């Protein structure tokens, strides 16, 4: 396996102050409210957070697939290889989707259409984005399937999804995801958990695809285990904002936001048996009635006066690790608000 420094290159995706709001009958839901992050070539960034924290809306905003109404991207920039894709026309964006940014779903059954054979489904993506037809298209399809290690691809491409094993179906979905050599691949993990052995297969496949193409991957998950296994960097979301972001080892060893620390402590470990798990009291706040100060204040072990007055600035705690917590104000390298 490649080391991370060999694998990781220039910034391919630069998300700046992204804001996506939904107008609902309860009020304005600030589902994504000032999100900043960067993704490099060959890098895997984990976006982790609880249900409703805004992970999927972040992904949908980058793909420009936010259902509208009720949703609107109200601010920010999404620079894909330097170009702000929020400025593109719908037609131009259509082209970017699937060719420069791909999306893979973890459940291969819902991602493949049961009535078309594999050749049709892999070919479809190539036909649209690379404008291939006839024999060239067929050769390319076979090539793609071989890349994801489907045995005897010229025969198996005539199969329908139900004729393939679960692992092979995952590989086909992976082949479609990378067929146009995208710069960014977004994997949004559904909340329902897969069996551990199937999940391990899927994670291995994503790794292989990345080594093959150098694609930057955004992995959206609830699970710190996935982050530990797959990611180079991680962004922790809470109530529509990134509360902490940094190198994966630093975040695990030295979390600089109380929410991150508490989350890591509240997950049981398979390697040791704990006497008592830490549990975070309460539950995440409703997004349409956020408190004035820090949105984690009513569950935090370190809440103090300042926390109730204003939402914390984002503090740089060193080595690219940033934290939106007032506790970091003194030890900080620099602050931006």
């Amino acid at each position: 396996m490649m080391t991370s420094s060999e694998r990781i290159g220039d910034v391919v995706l630069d998300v700046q102050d992204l804001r996506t709001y939904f107008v609902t009958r309860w009020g304005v839901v600030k589902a994504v409210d000032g999100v900043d992050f960067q993704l490099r070539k060959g890098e895997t960034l984990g976006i982790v957070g609880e249900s409703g924290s805004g992970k999927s809306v972040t992904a949908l905003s980058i793909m420009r697939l936010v259902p509208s109404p009720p949703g609107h991207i109200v601010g920010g920039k999404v620079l894909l290889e330097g170009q702000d894709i929020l400025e593109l026309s719908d037609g131009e964006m259509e082209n970017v989707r699937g060719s420069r940014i791909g999306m893979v779903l973890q459940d291969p059954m819902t991602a493949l259409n049961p009535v078309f054979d594999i050749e049709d489904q892999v070919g479809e993506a190539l036909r649209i984005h690379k404008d291939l037809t006839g024999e060239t298209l067929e050769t390319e399809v076979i090539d793609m399937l071989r890349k994801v290690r489907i045995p005897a691809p010229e025969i198996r491409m005539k199969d329908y999804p139900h004729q393939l094993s679960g692992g092979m179906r995952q590989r086909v979905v992976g082949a479609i995801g990378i067929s146009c050599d995208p710069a960014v691949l977004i994997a949004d993990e559904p909340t329902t958990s897969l069996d551990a052995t199937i999940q391990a297969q899927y994670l291995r496949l994503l790794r292989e695809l990345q080594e093959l193409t150098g694609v930057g991957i955004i992995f959206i998950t609830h699970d710190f285990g996935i982050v530990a296994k797959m990611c180079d960097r991680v962004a922790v979301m809470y109530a529509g904002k990134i509360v902490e972001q940094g190198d994966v080892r630093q975040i695990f060893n030295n979390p600089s936001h109380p929410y991150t620390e508490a989350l890591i402590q509240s997950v049981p470990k398979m390697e040791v048996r704990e006497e008592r798990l830490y549990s975070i009291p309460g539950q995440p706040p409703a997004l349409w009635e956020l408190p004035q100060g820090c949105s984690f204040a009513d569950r935090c072990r370190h809440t103090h006066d300042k926390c109730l007055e204003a939402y914390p600035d984002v503090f740089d705690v060193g080595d690219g690790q940033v934290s939106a917590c007032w506790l970091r104000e003194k030890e900080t390298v620099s602050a931006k608000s």
Partner: protein
Amino acid sequence: MTTENATNGSSESLLAVRGLKKHFQVGSGLFGRNKLFLKAVDGVDFEIKEGETYGLVGESGCGKTTTAKMILRLEEPTEGTFEFEGNDAETVGKSKDLTRNYKSNVQAVFQDPWASLNPRMRVGSIIAEPLEVSTVMTKTDIADKVGDLLVEVGLQKAQANLFPHEFSGGQRQRIGVARALALNPKLIVLDEPVSALDVSIRAQIMNLLEDLQDEYGLTYLLIAHHLATVRYMCDKVGVMYLGRIVEEAPTEELFDNPLHPYTRALMSAALPSHPDIEREEIILTGEVPSPLDPPRGCHFHPRCPSRFEPCEGTVPVETHPVPDHRVVCHLY
């Protein structure tokens, strides 16, 4: 806490199941010619000691929920017996009192807190229902008890008047626990009680279950596929594959010394709790086979990285390579 229980070998067995089988008839045809049997559970034995937590783990479809349903008497076993507090199934079945006693002593909490509560009933009535059906308590006594139960699981008395949709997922699971506690059961079957919940809420519910166990000496059968949850909660664990228990041991022994190749593969696939932990990945080839047509010999042989000559043709028998640690594999 549970660590004490694990070393306390003297406690009594509360529930013992032996040779439990459930074969579903599927497919049909004229004159029953295409009758097929799906062996969801195919000869399961285990024993749960009073005050302990027994874990059942295994991949989707291996028969965990079906086993639980038979214990809850929601599904009639095709074969096999059980013994509860020393009374066998036949004795329990013949006596109305014992049957009623069994039904109130064995309760359940299911995975999906959204689906398992009637949306049209107020939470107070949901919790009161088993008390109304199975006891002779007065209305006021029931209302008091419901209030106490709500407090016990970390909710408020006044919340009895609300409907399930007015609660979050974690709170609904608390309501499910309150309802299961209503009849002062001895055994609670927990079928994936936290897997539908958010990470921060999971720890709350697991700790609530641990506290209630300590307070009331409850016995749990915990079904989970998340190995770390099992390690945290259980005293003893059985690993199921295609309707059978292929390995069983006290929790610490199982995690420190997994013997069956399937158990090892499951553990190697489990996600690490820190980026520095790199496990050797055991790659399972082949598909999870169908319980309609299980492989001959050892059920696991088509996927087993350690298979050798006898595996394909001969069904392995149970051995005890370490005391209190059983495994069904030709390697031992």
